[in-house]
């Protein structure tokens, strides 16, 4: 039986893991070591309601310092872990202090990928509450916002900025937004959604040169056009925080490699959340996923496995994105498919698209159809082979297919 757990990181995954450890009756030491100065908080609203000024910072809290004190969960905040020593199950802090435990959970998350050459006073990235506070102060009616990258963060920032009355230009390298996840057909729907909201979406464009003057910022694009703005938000993906793991003995491959039990190859060292490249039985592959529901579910699974309950992490991934007054949701994981079956109306942004591969439902993407996505998620979990005609037919209740 283990007597102590150190969680490296203090985000969503860490918070859920700590809560799960206590809920399952673990009465040993639990310590969260986090680089930020704040106790764990939710990140999804940082690009949505919080950025729009509709939610308070207090409402984002996940584990209050009072809860931690009452439950004997230690918080070492504003503290950087510089090295993880796997076989010793020890972590070395920036000041040289070394902490040991019976189990380590690596939940270091990630940081925004930097765009080389785009540096200056007007450049913003979005990951932390402090980032959101800074960007929020920039977004006013008439502000000219340039968003680089039409992924989920970029699209959500574009949406919030439009809602606040800003003028928004989005520069996306790919031919369509989100097509690397959703495919071209749904990428086109997402592009239409952005344009309908008044976003100047420039696809197939890169940032060739970035300059700032006292009056503003200017992007020279790959095609030779100049886009001027007041602030530039870069959302070009995330880099997993694995630097402290160098030499730790755990396997690294764009993240920390773990099996379906959140175990690294070093005994007693686990990883979960954004940083974990985990084997997922549903796809038979290792994937790394950067979404809230995964961060929670994976943190929960890690806590169970640390306590010796064999709890494979098998649920289909699920995420949402609120953009332009639509609730986008995706369940499952599909890198290839033979057929996309659409239920509802894509031109009205009210639909579910089902991704079928060899007749098996692998993934589903929808707008304002979260209920049906919930059903689809169960169909995906059971590797169902639903009749495409039934999926398409709005008079068929999807729960009848379960």
């Amino acid at each position: 039986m283990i007597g102590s757990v150190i969680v490296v990181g203090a985000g969503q995954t860490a918070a859920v893991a700590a809560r799960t450890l206590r809920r399952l009756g673990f009465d040993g030491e639990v310590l969260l070591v986090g680089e930020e100065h704040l106790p764990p908080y939710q990140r999804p609203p940082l690009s949505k309601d919080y950025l729009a000024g509709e939610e308070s910072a207090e409402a984002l809290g996940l584990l209050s310092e009072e809860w931690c004190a009452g439950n004997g969960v230690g918080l070492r905040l504003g503290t950087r872990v510089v090295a993880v020593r796997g076989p010793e199950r020890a972590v070395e802090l920036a000041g040289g202090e070394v902490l040991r435990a019976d189990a380590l959970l690596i939940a270091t998350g990630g940081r925004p990928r930097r765009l080389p050459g785009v540096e200056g006073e007007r450049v913003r990235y979005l990951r932390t509450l402090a980032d959101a506070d800074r960007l929020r102060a920039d977004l006013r009616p008439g502000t000219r916002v340039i968003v680089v990258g039409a992924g989920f963060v970029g699209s959500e920032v574009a949406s919030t900025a439009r809602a606040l009355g800003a003028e928004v230009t989005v520069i996306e390298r790919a031919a369509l937004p989100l097509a690397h996840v959703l495919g071209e057909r749904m990428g086109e729907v997402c592009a239409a959604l952005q344009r309908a909201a008044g976003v100047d979406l420039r696809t197939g464009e890169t940032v060739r040169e970035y300059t700032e003057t006292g009056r503003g910022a200017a992007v020279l694009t790959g095609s030779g056009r100049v886009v001027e703005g007041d602030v530039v938000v870069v959302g070009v993906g995330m880099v997993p925080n694995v630097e402290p793991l160098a030499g730790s003995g755990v396997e690294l491959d764009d993240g920390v490699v773990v099996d379906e039990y959140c175990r690294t190859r070093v005994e007693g060292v686990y990883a979960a959340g954004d940083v974990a490249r985990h084997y997922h039985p549903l796809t038979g592959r290792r994937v790394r996923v950067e979404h809230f529901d995964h961060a929670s579910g994976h943190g929960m699974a890690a806590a169970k496995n640390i306590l010796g309950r064999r709890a494979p992490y098998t649920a289909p991934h699920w995420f949402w994105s609120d953009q332009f007054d639509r609730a986008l949701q995706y369940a499952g994981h599909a890198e290839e498919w033979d057929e996309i079956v659409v239920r509802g109306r894509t031109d009205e942004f009210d639909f579910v698209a089902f991704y079928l591969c060899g007749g098996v439902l692998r993934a589903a993407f929808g707008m304002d159809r979260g209920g049906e996505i919930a059903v689809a998620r169960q169909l995906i979990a059971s590797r169902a082979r639903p009749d495409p005609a039934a999926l398409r037919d709005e008079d068929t209740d999807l729960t009848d297919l379960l």
Partner: protein
Amino acid sequence: MEPDEWVEVTSLRDLERRRRRLVVVGGEQIGLFLVGGTVYALRDVCVHKGRSLAKGTILHGRVICPGHQWAFDPASGRPDGQEGCQPTYRVRVEDGAVYVDPRPRLPVGEGNR
């Protein structure tokens, strides 16, 4: 309660076919749900982000919001694992007709959140 508060809103047969339906009674948007053979009524506008619950789904005895998949107990209006409560309404089924009392029931001890 006054008997004249009951308003006929639809037929049981219609709900058996569609399982969920939005009705508007006295300015209240009410979602009707047929769950396990019983008709329930919830305020249609989700307490979380204002999406229409009637556009959601019934799954494992819960009403699932299309916005962010909050799952409501249709009898109490309580969302699983979340704060708050969705107002509910009294429902009566008689001779194949569905009646609703459009005065929302607030749970005991729940102030105006």
